[in-house]
């Protein structure tokens, strides 16, 4: 199952594009996706601690524009947004 992870804020430093793509097993959860992103950081940025902390402190947003918890099951191929700690306004 292909998931397009839309990047926002500091997570934009993960790629020159504004998204990353991950292949997850059917009915994976946000927790599994977070794990995959941590693996990506490990493999592409030598386990950069700041990037890992960023992933661990990020929320995720479903295609329906809802903030979803780690238990949320991803039941179809979709875009998911990574929402790092916010600092706007």
């Amino acid at each position, binding site marked *: 199952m292909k998931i397009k992870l*839309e990047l*926002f*804020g*500091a997570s*934009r*430093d993960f790629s020159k594009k504004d998204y990353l793509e991950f292949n997850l097993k059917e009915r994976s959860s946000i927790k599994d996706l977070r794990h995959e992103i941590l693996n990506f950081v490990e493999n592409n940025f030598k386990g950069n601690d700041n990037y890992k902390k960023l992933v*661990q*402190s*990020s*929320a995720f*947003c479903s295609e329906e*524009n809802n*903030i979803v*918890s*780690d238990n949320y099951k991803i039941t179809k191929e979709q875009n998911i*947004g990574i*929402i*790092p*700690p*916010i*600092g*706007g*306004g």
Partner: protein
Amino acid sequence: MLHAKIIDVTKEKIDLAKAQKFIASSKCGASIYFVGTVRDQNNDKKVTGITYDSHDALVIKSFKEIYNEAETKFKFKNIAVFIEHIKGYVELGETSIIIAVACKHRSQAYEFSRYVIEEIKKRTPIWKKEHYEGEDSKWLKGNPLIDQNQLK
């Protein structure tokens, strides 16, 4: 009555006159304009500009939620609120956000406006990348939108 919009700096700018027009009403005796601008210093660093990033759909949803909560909390009648936030690179002194509020009385306008900006700061998915003179640009740290305990 609410107007909420993200302004892409490459296409348009935040316009105070639009806010004035939107909130104008003979039912309101007080109008407050909160205007956030880019300043030249932060944490002893010389700032040259800020790039704002946003999750547009979530931002608009958040603005509506904050407005609805404030309406319920304060129970003021005949309020008009205009919120626009910029997205993209903004130079020193330029406007990043405007919150215009019109209410019957001044105390109501102050209260409502203050509530809206403080809640936006806490929970609206907008990010800032500061650009400095002679140093690398940096994304500013912010408030996590998740309970860290759920990850343990």
